[in-house]
């Protein structure tokens, strides 16, 4: 898996270190991290293969998303190595990949379990970097985890291609030179949803937010609040709910008894399933609010997986999503076909973003002609590409955020199949969701 030469060298160092254990602290600089590494961390040198680290939640609340991400990664590896039908490698533009691995080296991978916990995710990523010699880490289905792992990779000078993470912070105040995000963010959700919310619910609504109490929830609450207040809405109360909450009835009853008339659920995954369930069981959606208007529910970020978890409750509810398998473009069709051929069902948006990220990394290596992040990072910064399911897309150099169209979706009232749960209401053009790179602060730092 990893390079022989590096291994021998490292062993000798270790031996030396072991013997001279007592002297370790007297000999400061010689033995610091990666003393044996050549140009950059985990340089594959003349090895015939390279290792990528797929760090996804395999246990815990997001493990279904994690499983789907892993499927996508395996598919991507297969395609990179020239197997399968090639998937998006047939559509991607521009493309330098040749189907012979990356830079002629076979792609191998290691997997790890983030448990959706930052420390566990970092430990897993560390193992991939230190033990398995991974050149790039990717994955995650929680912004907390993504930010934590991104920080670690930045310190270790290893590429991090974020998976599902929607917080503004990932490419905002916590952005890092070595981290790249393809997924959209909370600000974009707010900007994309605002017009349609105005159209559907008018511009004098009163919103009641229930917010998952962590990085992502905070930024989404802020983004939606800002976007809707610009429409003329007012925000009654932003209420934070602990991530561990399962019964939201107390929160819902307080919302009903407030003078609000739109419930915004800044929840993801099981949290959202539970809070929506409580809202529906209190008949909120059939009620007239104290303002005299019909109660409405908005779930700014939702996915097909979440819709599946909510069953009938989700029908008719508006939200935004990064990508959906039912999109009509050729790239989407190619990806869905190749994924469904292999696994028997269509991919989730998490799977899509992870697959695309893997290909984008590989492509950037090809274009840079090296695995050295010093070359790969510039190759990704400002890179423009198309035909990967989201239309024309750009990796903005200033914050490593992808800019592309955003989908506004609605829970399908009449699903024809068990997968047909989201109806794409509108494809919001990139221009409408774009913002200044400096808006969320943060610093990329040096290479």
């Amino acid at each position, binding site marked *: 898996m990893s390079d022989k030469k590096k291994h021998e060298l490292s062993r000798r160092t270790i031996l030396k270190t072991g013997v001279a254990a007592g002297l370790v602290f007297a000999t400061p600089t010689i033995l610091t991290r990666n003393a044996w590494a050549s140009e950059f961390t985990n340089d594959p040198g003349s090895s015939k293969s390279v290792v990528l680290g797929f760090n996804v939640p395999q*246990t*815990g*609340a997001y*493990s*279904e998303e994690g499983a789907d991400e892993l499927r996508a990664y395996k598919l991507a590896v297969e395609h990179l190595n020239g197997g399968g039908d090639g998937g998006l490698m047939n559509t991607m533009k521009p493309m330098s990949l040749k189907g012979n691995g990356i830079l002629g080296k076979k792609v191998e991978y290691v997997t790890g379990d983030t448990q959706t916990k930052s420390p566990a995710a970092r430990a897993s990523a560390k193992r991939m970097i230190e033990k398995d010699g991974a050149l790039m880490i990717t994955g995650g289905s929680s912004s907390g985890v993504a930010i934590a792992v991104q920080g670690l990779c930045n310190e270790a000078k290893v590429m991090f291609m974020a998976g599902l993470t929607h917080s503004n912070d990932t490419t905002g105040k916590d952005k890092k030179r070595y981290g790249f995000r393809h997924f959209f963010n909370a600000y974009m959700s707010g900007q994309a949803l605002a017009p349609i919310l105005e159209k559907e619910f008018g511009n004098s609504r009163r919103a009641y937010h229930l917010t998952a109490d962590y990085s992502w929830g905070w930024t989404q609450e802020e983004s939606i609040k800002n976007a809707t207040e610009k429409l003329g809405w007012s925000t009654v*109360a932003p*209420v934070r709910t*602990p991530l*561990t909450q*399962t*019964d939201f*009835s*107390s*929160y819902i*009853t*307080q919302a*009903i*008894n407030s003078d609000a008339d739109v419930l915004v659920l800044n929840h993801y*995954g*099981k949290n959202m*399933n*539970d809070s929506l*369930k409580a809202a529906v*069981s*209190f*008949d909120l959606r*059939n*009620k007239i609010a*104290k303002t005299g208007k019909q109660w409405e529910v908005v779930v700014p970020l939702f996915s097909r*997986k979440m819709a*599946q*978890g*909510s*069953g*009938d*409750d989700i029908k008719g509810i508006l939200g935004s999503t990064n990508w959906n*398998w039912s999109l009509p473009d050729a790239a989407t*069709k190619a990806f*869905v*076909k190749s994924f*469904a*051929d292999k696994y*028997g*069902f*269509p991919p989730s948006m998490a799977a899509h973003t992870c697959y695309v990220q893997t290909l984008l990394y590989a492509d950037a290596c090809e274009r840079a002609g090296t695995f050295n992040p010093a070359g790969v990072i510039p190759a990704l910064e400002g890179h423009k590409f198309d035909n990967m399911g989201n239309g024309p897309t750009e990796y903005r150099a200033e914050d490593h955020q992808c800019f592309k169209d955003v989908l506004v979706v609605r829970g399908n009232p009449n699903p*024809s*199949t*068990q*997968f*047909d749960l989201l109806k794409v209401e509108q494809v919001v053009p990139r221009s409408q969701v774009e913002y200044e790179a400096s808006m969320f602060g943060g610093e990329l730092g040096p290479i």
Partner: protein
Amino acid sequence: MEAILIQILNGLDKGAAYALIALGLTLAFGTLGIVNFAHGVLFMLGAFCAVSVNKILTISHKIKDESVTLFDAYKEIPYLEIWWGDTGTMIIDYSVPISIIFTIPTMILIGIAMERGLIRFFYKRTHAEQILVTFGLAIVVQEVIKHFFGANPIPMSAPEIVSGSAPVGALFGLSDSMVYPWWRLIYSLFSVIVIGGVFAFLQYTTYGMVVRAGMADRDTVGLLGINIQRRFTIVFALAAVVAGLAGAMYTPIVGPDYHMGMELLVLSFVVVVVGGMGSLPGAVAAGFLLGILESFASMNEVKQIIPGIDQIIIYLVAVVILLVRPRGLMGRKGVMED
């Protein structure tokens, strides 16, 4: 006033779940002397009984959906609907209440298997070892369930007819906006019936008498020449059934996942301690009390005064109770009072 009433109602269904789990825990502890960390798993298994029944009832005939060309998609029509039309639809609609019929025997079997297969070897071991082995068992069972049902919560719904909310506000002459989901009312009521059933069983059957005597003085009952082993098994099975029913009926309130039992277990232990280790009425009373207290603590008005109180109220109550009245609200004097 309305806010207070609605918070009491809110606490009721959660309190009912606490009470049912705590009841079984206490039963096992009082008679068998077992501290069962796998009890939460029994609640979870009950919930998955309901899920399984629903899955069985909705076994579907698959028709290829020609409109989807990218992959093989199917339209699914449950066989029950094909065979029996509206009757079939109704049966599926009522799958949660129907699952009770299936849950009871299943939980009895699981209870017996657990007691005979594992717990009985631990009657003479320390509480610490009991905690540890049942903790291990809980992990194993959870993982097995996860293996078969996945990690995500499974949406379950109450029968259509009770899917809405009861206009409790209107009933009490208060604001119309005050409503409460029917199913949660049913759940609270159901738990009262189950609790009543357990108490009646203990009060009026010979088994029950032995169990109560056993809770009072375990050693003596053993000396009476009663087949204590079989009684123990039955008590454990009863505890399993109570937990299982609590779980099965809870599914429409919170979608079940493999981890749901553990979350409730820690709280239920605290409930048992507050009620008084070994006191059945104590467990029930403390369950409802803490459920309602928790609900009050999550009111925004309360949280503004004491931030974070909703997160710790139950534990705080437990700490205070243990320190000032170690035998709990209704525990007998001297029972593990040290």
